[in-house]
């Protein structure tokens, strides 16, 4: 029960920091003005066009595809593998388990592997391509190590050392219902959950901010309509953009 309580506290803490950290970052992005119209053109003219552009970026990684096919392939495998693997984990948080979550259980296993392969590919590029090696800080390597270890320990529990998933589910539901339950003391599970806590804690303080950040990127979310629509930020307005025009001179 001690272990269960420890992890309960850790998860509450990590969730609080994750949420508050992200809210504060997002608020800062939202409140910082974009004084000039700077979409990377050709850019959509309408709001729905911008929504479509953003959709293509988020779902298909359109710009990355133009930039680097290998990074695109590994990056896409990783992100969408992770998305499906995360969705698979919903079975630990729902009772009864939602139908679609039941239906994707088998895909989720392969998704976890795709995530692992994608991460491994990204790390290989970081080490092997001299340009990417040059721009990598220790934190860039550690981030990949962390995610690989999370994926690896998860896959390990499926294929190497099973844990008592009924007890795990009791633990997670207990977290949600504020009715703390014990956690099985299995090494892989403890590693898996500890690393997830670490990931949640560093999320709002690291490059993982690319996730909320991309929605605020002015080069992607602005419309190309500067001639038709006058765009002025508050601080620029204060500069009295058009001071009283000089009187007519010849």
């Amino acid at each position, binding site marked *: 029960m001690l272990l269960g309580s420890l992890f309960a506290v850790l998860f509450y803490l990590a969730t609080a920091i994750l949420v508050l950290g992200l809210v504060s*970052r997002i608020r*800062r*992005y939202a409140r*910082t003005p*974009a*004084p*000039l*119209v*700077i979409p*990377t*053109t*050709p850019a*959509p*003219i309408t709001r729905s066009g911008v929504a479509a552009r953003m959709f293509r970026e988020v779902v298909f990684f359109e*710009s*990355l595809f*133009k*930039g*680097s096919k290998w*990074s695109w392939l590994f990056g896409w495998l990783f992100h969408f593998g992770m998305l499906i693997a995360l969705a698979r984990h919903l079975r630990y948080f729902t009772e009864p388990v939602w139908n679609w979550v039941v239906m994707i259980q088998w895909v989720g296993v392969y998704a976890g592997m795709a995530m692992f392969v994608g991460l491994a590919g*990204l790390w290989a*590029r*970081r080490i092997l*391509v001299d*340009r*990417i090696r*040059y*721009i*990598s*800080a*220790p*934190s860039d390597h*550690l981030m990949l190590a962390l995610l690989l270890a999370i994926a690896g320990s998860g896959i390990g529990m499926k294929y190497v050392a099973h844990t008592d998933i009924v007890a795990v589910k009791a633990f997670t539901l207990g977290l949600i219902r504020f009715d703390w339950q014990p956690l099985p003391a299995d090494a892989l599970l403890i590693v898996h959950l500890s690393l997830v806590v670490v990931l949640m804690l*560093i999320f709002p*303080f*690291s*490059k993982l*901010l*690319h996730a909320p*950040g*991309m929605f*605020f*990127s*002015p*080069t992607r979310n602005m419309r*190309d309509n*500067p*001639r038709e629509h*006058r*765009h*002025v930020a508050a*601080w*620029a307005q204060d*500069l009295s*953009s*058009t001071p009283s025009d*000089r009187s*007519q*001179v*010849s």
Partner: protein
Amino acid sequence: MAKVEFETPELKPWVDAPKVAPGAMAHSKPFVAKPEHQQPLGFPGELVENWKDVALEKMGDLLGRYRSLQVFMDACVKCGACTDKCHYYLGTGDPKNMPVARQDLMRKIYRRYFTPAGKWFPKLVGAVDLTEEVINDWYSYYHQCSECRRCSVYCPYGIDTAEITMAGREILASIGVGQKYSNEIIGKVHTIGNNLGLPEPALADTLEGLEEEVEEDIGVSVKFPLDQQGADVLLVTPSADFFAEPHVDGLIGYAKVFHQAGISWTLSSYASEAANFGIFIGNYENMQKVAQRIRQAALDLGVKRIIVGECGHAWRVAYSFWNTLIGPFDFLDPSYPVPQHICEFTHDLLQRGALKLDPEANDDKVVTFHDSCNVSRGSRLGSAPGGQFTIPRDLIQAACRHFVDMAPDTIHEHTFCCGGGGGLLTDDLLELRVKGAMPRAQALQQVIESHGVTHMAAICAICKSQFSKVLPQYGMGMDMIISVHQLVGDALIFDTEQ
């Protein structure tokens, strides 16, 4: 001036990402602005004593004023997609010319002073203290970026290194370390009205000379009006168009189009410059002040429309920023776009059948088109996205029967900068300019060999100046580069009734 010894890159059948060569361009630095170039722009004359505090304060200020800077500092994941996209990296191999590394020069300071991770674990996240060495790197490498936005096309988050270069230059200027070339020019616009410091009498004289020259040449009395009250159109064009080659042939082309269309127009001696180097140094206030002269001239002359001549960054400022900086334009005729590009204007006339071109006039040429970075990725022509690519090509093909495009990954949104944009068109950066032109020269070389291309047309004064200087370094003629409106002007059929 000490002559820098360097080797012009060899043109290969394709462009490979070079091996990283740390420090290869660390020696490249433009001349530093003198106090007389700094002070009129509102910057301190020389390095201030508490430069570190001032720089960090300015950085905090900019982070709060520009969402782009704030988001871009946080969002980069170091995926490497941009690393082989910058023409300066491709031409020099210096890793600090990779867009992400150029950003990191500022990001490592941002992390150290503005993020918990960098305050507590600097080594882990690559954060460093702001030292003189960092400032030297900034001065060197923020003047090895032409703010062309090519990297932003490929970034999964749209990170635009130009925004960071602009912030870097603004911070540098605000601690007293400005760039002489750009700041001296901005000062000339503030006092005289154009980058060249060409006063009204000299301008009037030049235009008169052009009228005589054109009449002698084609026997038509094409006018180049200056400060003409009540004209319909105010033409604002880069001052290089007044006398530099091949720019002036473009200006002659515009004048012929106006003449044949029968639309009254005028230049202004008060606002005799479309270029706005305020964008290059990232300074909103100076950019606005430069642009303000144009609003004033339009009001004073009582024109109905403003048309902008061939100039890349000027068009970005005009199209994307003017309405914000000096709008609203409620005193102009709302039936025309404000501002309008000369290519849009001519294209419209052609489509309406108001102009006739004889493309056989340019039969001696095989032409390709260089998409200028600021037009391609920072603005638009026409009413639909991508008009910036089709409209100039339509004009060229209407004026010339032999047209061929360069390789697809070097045109349209993928276009390479000429190597001289963003305030780098100065002889103290000649090595950088030559090396940075390599990717474009390579693509041009390919169509010369495959299609016998004789000329490359462009719609940017900087591109034209840069190419006439650097193409000879690659064994190509300096007169290969021409204005789109030179082709139009040469093909124009004059209605002899007039």
